[in-house]
């Protein structure tokens, strides 16, 4: 590290007089370790003014939207008459699309619960904290595991006819295959970038791709009776 200090370190039995904190920083688990000193600015006005400008710009954009487009309002609620199709707001459309394939227990309760639990536990798993490539160690064995899992997932989705969810799974699996076959010394920058990605990156990107595809399907490709429509034809 730096030049040796001209004092001796010791332990005092009086914890109040000489408080001791010992931290073991294991390799690549804490984001703070390497930086010795940092440029700092005062929160006021440095942070506050920048945030104020950002929020002001957002408000201007929202006001412009509000002046240009009216929020929808349909007819009075009528328990006797269900509109067709009855679509949820866009952030639930992905879920509603899943409901088309799986029973409500699975699509409405099980999957969202698993997603939430999955999100919560991310930072408590070591493999998500380490920032090293998924293929850095044990590359061949890990590729075999990924292949098996991807295949099982594809079979499961095919069995339930969830063809739309199959597409992102296959795409992501293909990219993972390319990443496994690359290295930090690969010729193209793309392959080097793919190689460096962690397991948590791949899982989250798969989840993001699935959510985007399912939401897009629910928004644009579903018509009356939740039947398939081609948006450019209707």
């Amino acid at each position, binding site marked *: 590290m730096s030049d040796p200090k001209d004092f001796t370190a010791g332990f005092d039995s009086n914890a109040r007089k000489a408080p001791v904190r010992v931290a073991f920083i294991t390799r*690549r*688990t*804490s*984001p*703070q370790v*390497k*930086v010795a000193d*940092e*440029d*700092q*600015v*005062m*929160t*006021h*006005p*440095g*942070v506050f003014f*920048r*945030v104020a400008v*950002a*929020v002001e710009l*957002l*408000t201007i954009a*929202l*006001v412009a939207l*509000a002046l240009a*487009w009216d*929020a929808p*309002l*349909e007819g*009075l*609620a009528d328990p006797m008459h269900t*509109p067709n199709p*009855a*679509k*949820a*707001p866009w*952030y*639930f459309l992905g879920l509603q699309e899943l409901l088309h394939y799986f*029973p*409500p*227990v699975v699509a*409405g*309760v099980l999957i969202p619960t698993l997603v*939430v639990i999955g*999100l*919560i536990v*991310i*930072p*408590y798993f070591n493999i998500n904290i380490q*920032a*090293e490539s998924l293929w850095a160690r044990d590359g061949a064995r890990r590729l075999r595991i990924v292949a098996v899992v991807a295949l099982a997932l594809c079979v499961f989705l095919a069995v339930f006819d969830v063809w739309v969810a199959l597409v992102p799974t296959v795409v992501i699996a293909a990219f993972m295959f390319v990443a496994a076959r690359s290295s*930090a010394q690969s010729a193209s920058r793309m392959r*080097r*970038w793919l*190689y*460096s990605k962690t397991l948590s*990156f791949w899982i*989250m990107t798969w989840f*993001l791709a699935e959510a985007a595809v399912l939401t897009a399907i629910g928004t644009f490709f579903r018509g009356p009776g939740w039947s398939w429509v081609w948006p450019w034809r209707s």
Partner: protein
Amino acid sequence: MAKSLTTYLDDLRDSRVWRSIFRSGPGQSNLHHALVVQSNVFLHLFSVKARKRVLDFSVTWYLGALTFGSFLVLVITGVLLMLYYHPSVPLAYTDMKDLQFVVSSGVFLRNLHRWSAHAMVLLVFAHMFKVFYRGAYRPPREFNWVIGVVLLLITLFLSYTGYLLPWDQLAFWAVTVGSNIASAVPVFGRHIRFLMLGGNLVNANALLRFYVLHCMILPLTAIFFIAIHFWRIRKDGGLYAGAPTTVAEKEGER
């Protein structure tokens, strides 16, 4: 003019009345700027200093701040809309028509509220993905990530409860479908649905419960968790700026 505006403001800030309210007094020194933050009950949630790197746009895209900004717009427009809304059937729907045609600026406020709601849901998801992809959830920030997931759920529930309030076809059937999904929870499903709706059907009781949830319970919960979220940022060492030299960088990955 002989004295500039800044001198007038400085004199104001130096006055006895001002000093009795805001202790910081006039001045542009770092001490003064530090006092502005430290001696304010709301602002001292934040640290006095921040790492400069963190303020670059490319680091966070300011998504967290924008999410909070859209929340503020929603609270303000929401409170104003509450003044012309009766949470009863079928007055709720006629009130929506009133807001559209009769109330001055009614259409604007309702539109602003609706689009800000969509924006907030979009921004909260974007914020979550940005935090994930730059690794800002890693220790010591893991619990703040959990608080963030909680805030995501609160945002979705706020949006869902607000969706029913116009009492139009869209609202009614969206909630009918949603409450039926809730009843699919094993063992407790029917009870959850009964409590949620205040009955067996989506009717006046359901509207009132969703109104109280949307305007009182969930916003208070959100503010509670937002305060914790900001506090944890500070106590975990400030916003994560990404270490400038990592082993990954040395190996030429980025």
